């Protein structure tokens, strides 16, 4: 574990840089590529995720669609989202998107987190939650542009896809990749995944999907989970995949330079008080004040009440 810390490039709520002695740290990052055009919605990846991570969500109810469970939860870290979309030609398209953490290069969850070391980013790009440091405030939910983290009702800790950081660390591919029967999920270096995606996109274009493209949004400096979409011009039709995701301006303002400035202003208020006391001094009541007050009291108390 001790050496693992050398592979961490960012920790939440930490103001100093991480250990950076290793050379080439962060040069090679990994990525999962999800090819929505090859996905058949079998949910083998969902099952593999449950198995590898030992997660058992509550058995829910049928909501009238294939999507099950209906949403991500603290025990469902990935989920096939099904959308039925009528295209411009009047044909029905069944768009299936494997949802889960995107492993942003610039993670909003990590930015929002107030607990030191509860969220980390490894040199390979994976964003991981360290639940032992999590305080359960839920700020990561507010920070995430993709609505991914969930706080468990059982232990009030935040959970999400780890990109199988434990498997990747020992040279294995994530469990979902291993389970996928169609090759819709592939895993490797981010460079390789981009090349692979380029091939796929060329193929799709030759088949008439002229808007096919790669989803690797620049607003969060790219992601370590990418999609090949048939309709990359309209990501929102894939069950609300955001078109231009970025850390919200409200979160930037909340977690940006304003905080150290506010701390400084509070400290300055206290210091101003201290130096006011040193320079101007206390405001004291002296004998003269007491005498004048006594005078006035004597006059009032010895005179008949004149007030209306």
């Amino acid at each position, binding site marked *: 574990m001790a050496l693992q810390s050398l592979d961490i490039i960012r920790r939440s709520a930490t103001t100093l840089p991480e250990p950076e002695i290793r050379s080439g740290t962060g040069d090679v990052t990994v990525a999962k590529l999800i090819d929505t055009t090859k996905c058949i919605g079998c949910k083998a990846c969902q099952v593999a995720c449950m198995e590898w991570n030992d997660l058992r969500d509550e058995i829910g109810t049928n909501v009238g669609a294939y999507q099950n469970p209906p949403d991500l939860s603290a025990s469902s870290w990935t989920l096939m989202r099904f959308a039925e979309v009528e295209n411009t030609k009047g044909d029905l398209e069944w768009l299936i998107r494997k949802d889960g953490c995107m492993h942003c290069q610039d993670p909003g969850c990590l930015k929002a987190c107030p607990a030191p070391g509860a969220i980390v980013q490894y040199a390979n790009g994976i964003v991981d939650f360290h639940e032992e440091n999590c305080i359960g405030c839920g700020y990561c939910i507010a920070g995430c542009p993709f609505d991914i983290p969930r706080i468990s009702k059982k232990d009030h800790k935040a959970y999400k896809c780890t990109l199988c950081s434990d498997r990747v660390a020992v040279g294995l591919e994530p469990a979902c990749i291993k389970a996928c029967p169609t090759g819709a999920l592939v895993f490797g270096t981010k460079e390789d995944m981009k090349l692979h995606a380029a091939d796929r996109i060329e193929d799709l274009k030759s088949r008439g999907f002229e808007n096919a493209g790669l989803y690797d949004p620049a607003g969060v400096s790219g992601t370590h989970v990418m999609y090949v979409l048939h309709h990359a011009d309209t990501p929102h039709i894939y069950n609300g995949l955001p078109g231009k995701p970025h850390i919200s301006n*409200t979160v930037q303002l909340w977690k940006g330079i304003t905080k150290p400035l*506010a701390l400084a202003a509070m400290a300055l*208020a206290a210091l101003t008080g201290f130096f*006011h006391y040193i320079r101007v001094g206390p*405001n004291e*009541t002296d004998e003269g004040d*007491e005498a004048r*007050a006594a005078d*006035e009291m004597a006059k009032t*108390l010895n005179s008949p009440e004149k007030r209306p």
Partner: protein
Amino acid sequence: MTDSTRITDAPGHSTGEAGQGSPRRRDTILRYTTSDRTNHWLTAIAFVCAGLSGLAMFHPAVFWLSGLFGGGPWTRILHPYIGLFMVVAFALLAVRFWSHNFLQPADWKWLRQIRDVVNNREDRLPEVGRYNAGQKLLYWVIVVCLAGLLLTGIVIWRAYFSDYFSIRVVRLAALLHAFCAFVLITSIIVHIYSAIWVKGSVHAMTRGTVTPGWAWKHHRAWFREMIHAANSRSRPD
């Protein structure tokens, strides 16, 4: 000691001095009743605890404050309850002091002469009633900030309420909560310093009484009200 307009001889205050010096030294004016003071200090303690536990989550430089509350998760658990307690305590205090805190035209003049205020040139200022303009402003700042902290605090209270609000609303609430806390804490720093600066104020809130000279110097209109009230009460009917 429940009648806040009574001029009293404070028990135990320079007793046994009758005949020596001015007998008037023994006079004190009741400014805060026992329940006023209890209410004030409950609010103050709650403020300090809410503020420190909140600041722990505010910036990593002060995350160590969470140690005072038993660690990060305990800080997260306790903070909203302490906040609620402060809101209730202050609401009661606000009702007690409500009628004394409406700003009058003279208050604006007082504020314009803030230089005289901070340089201890009180003789140049308009006469002040029970509270000066600064104290009245502080009262309203606390009212507004606490209302804001209550509303936004509920929205960001993940364990019970956040799931009922959209993420946009939660983000905005978190920002506003931090902002209100900042304004409140800064204002209270000024409030605490003023109490240290103006000698006799701390005694008013710890023992309940002030000297006539103190009242005459800092709150002359109130001082006159007090002695007139005492005068009319002491007249035989």
